């Protein structure tokens, strides 16, 4: 049909052949098309089907094939035109052919909404979650906190070999020390604490009012004030509901950040990294607050907070210059030491434990305590 001119009159046109699927059966129908005031689809021996040009839409097709659907026909009815001349004749008549496709503006809209959604998620992570954690943590029922604490305790004991140190004299000394700080802190008697027999030098608080000191820390301590300062810090965490706040905050942020990144990188590295940064800064604030609390308690007891920081420094050494500071969950030990040194004051109260009691405490895990 290379040199056939195309008169407008329908009668003169060559047969305009296409393939039609009526969307009801899969029968491949050979049809002739008539481009009248509507598109007429005629199969020999069947009634003509009419599609209004305004209802015709383009459907996905391979290259070299024009595939059409019609909004007023069965949704899967398809007309397939291979002849390029016929195809372009139809296309020029259908003004709304590509109306349903995602346009450049549509893509811009997707980008805009996503950026807005991401920005609000980030705002929630940075401002909403800390606020929610602060407000919700004190509202968590005591019973639930207790349960979370119990669950954590089982795991902790599984990790550190089970059992607590319970040399009677050492226990008495430990109870005395804990009670003095607890009373100063204004916490009630439901607070429990114990020493766990492991050489790891650390201490931590669990939800529901549990404070654990690990034997490794006790071994490295030189006097009761060092231990007391650290216990006071942990009581600070209890007082501030830091466990519950952290739990709510970490759960919330990891969920939101996971939501934000979805599978953009196909790896969780970004999620992990951004979570660490966000959570670390949150936990650094909590640690600062617990340190402040410890300083106040030690002052209230007439003792200096400095020995506790010295003990920490003895354990960790200088921390600066190791790794990225925005990833650290604690303030640097040297900064904490500097801060506590500033708060140093000569003891105005009686020693927290007698020399005898201190010796007993060091030996709480059995044997004569390592000095």
């Amino acid at each position, binding site marked *: 049909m290379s040199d056939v001119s195309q008169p407008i009159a329908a009668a003169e046109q*060559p*047969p305009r*052949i296409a393939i039609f*699927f*009526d*969307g*009801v*059966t*899969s*029968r*491949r129908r*050979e049809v002739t098309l008539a481009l009248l005031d509507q598109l007429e689809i005629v199969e020999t021996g069947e009634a003509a089907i009419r599609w209004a040009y305004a209802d015709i839409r383009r*459907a*996905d*097709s*391979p*290259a070299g094939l024009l*595939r059409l659907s019609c909004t007023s026909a069965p949704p*899967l*009815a*398809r007309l397939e035109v*291979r*002849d390029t001349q016929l195809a372009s004749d139809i296309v020029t008549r259908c003004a709304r052919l590509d109306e349903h496709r*995602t346009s450049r503006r549509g*893509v811009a809209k*997707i*980008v805009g*909404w*996503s*950026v807005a*959604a*991401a920005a609000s998620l980030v705002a929630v992570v940075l401002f909403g979650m800390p606020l929610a954690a602060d407000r919700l943590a004190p509202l968590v029922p005591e019973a639930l906190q207790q*349960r*979370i604490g*119990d*669950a*954590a305790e*089982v*795991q902790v*004991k*599984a990790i550190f070999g089970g059992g607590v140190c319970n040399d009677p004299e050492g226990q008495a000394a430990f109870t005395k020390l804990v009670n003095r700080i607890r009373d100063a802190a204004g916490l009630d008697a439901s607070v429990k604490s114990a020493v766990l027999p492991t050489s790891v030098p650390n201490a931590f608080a669990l939800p529901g009012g549990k404070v654990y000191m690990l034997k490794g820390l006790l071994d490295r301590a030189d006097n009761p004030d060092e231990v007391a300062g650290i216990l006071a810090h942990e009581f600070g965490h209890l007082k501030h509901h830091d466990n519950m706040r952290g739990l709510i905050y970490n*759960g919330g942020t990891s*969920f939101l950040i996971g*939501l*934000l*990144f*979805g*599978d*953009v*990188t*196909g*790896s969780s*590295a*970004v999620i992990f990294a951004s979570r660490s940064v966000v959570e670390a800064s949150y936990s650094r604030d909590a640690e600062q607050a617990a340190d402040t609390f410890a300083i106040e308690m030690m002052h209230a007891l007439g003792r200096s907070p400095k020995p506790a920081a010295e003990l920490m420094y003895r354990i960790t050494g200088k921390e600066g*210059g*190791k*790794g*990225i*500071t925005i*990833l650290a969950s604690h303030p640097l030990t040297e900064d904490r030491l500097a801060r506590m040194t500033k708060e140093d004051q000569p003891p105005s109260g009686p020693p927290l434990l007698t020399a005898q009691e201190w010796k007993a405490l060091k030996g709480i895990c059995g044997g004569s305590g390592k000095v």
Partner: protein
Amino acid sequence: MNDFQWAPVGPPLPVSPPPLPPARVDFTGDRGDFRRLVTKGAALELVTFGFYRFWLVTDIRRHLWSNTSVNGDAAEYTGRAKELLLGFLFALAILVPIYLAYFLVTIEVERFQGFASTPLFISFYAFGQFAIYRARRYRLTRTVWRGVRFWMDGSGWAYSLRAMLWGLLVFLTLGLALPWREASLERYKMQHSHYGDLNGDFVGDGWTFFKRGWWLWLLSPVAIIIFPLAPFFYAEFKARQWRWWLSGIRIGGVSLESKLPHDAFYGLYWKVIGWTMLLSMALGMYVSICTALVVKLGGGSLEDVVGGDGFNSIPLLALTVIGYFAMALAFNIVMRVYLQRDLWAKVLETTHVHGIEAAANVRASGELASALGEGFADGLDVAGF
């Protein structure tokens, strides 16, 4: 112009009785088009923090489907990104309370026994299998050929239960039962699949699959020790799996046959590995150049910038993150071009369809399925055929 001129692809409709040659399956998609599609998509995915994934996945499927023709007639994918987005939001609305309940149950259980909550992961596995079934159902109901849809019935939870029991057996037999698991699960899926009023079936059996792949199972420890062999093993396994799977598919009187060679995927996997190595090297070079620049401009020593076990310089950290994103983007493009498009094309060019005349006059039937399953699959990070 005579009656046949409009159809340069595919033979004219056969009118004579058998024997008929098998119908061809062709993939006519242009590789450049696909590459541009995924490049643009990956870039948009990056600037939209991943939300564009629903649109990209839809565009990829539309491209692959509409360029796949069986017996001269191209298929069509009618799913839309908004459905996926909605499915994802619905799945979230269901998953969030479950995550919360899971959290509370964990606490209750842990109280009695340390680490006893691990079996609760099973419930997530169950959800994942449900998601795989429902996602297949969504994709199938959006697949149109000759103006008639495929569709699926059956229950996602019944499927999930089967998948879990078979999973347990596979675990207990150290993977030996895998072929039988695949066969049984595929049978369930295909027997609940339909094209119009034609019913699907799956005739592949576990024993055939086992005979094709047992030595791979036996030699898999070798691949773990001698790393360069691993891609060969995986490519072998995948090719054998595809061939077995396709050859087992029946829809009414229509049967599929795959002649996929066992070494069909070697090239693809090696290309992906080559690109990955190239990209990693590029990232390494980029980071070292950035480090050098930061050291030079900042005036500090190398020690100051990269001290201890990380970076101390915020600009360098930012530059590295940008480099990482660029690499992730490039890697996504490579994966999609080789492991989606090229793999698809390779599989299709060796597939033949017998008895296609049974699909000549099929009556449309079945309901459309929601994209909830796709949403779950997205939320739980599972994927399936």
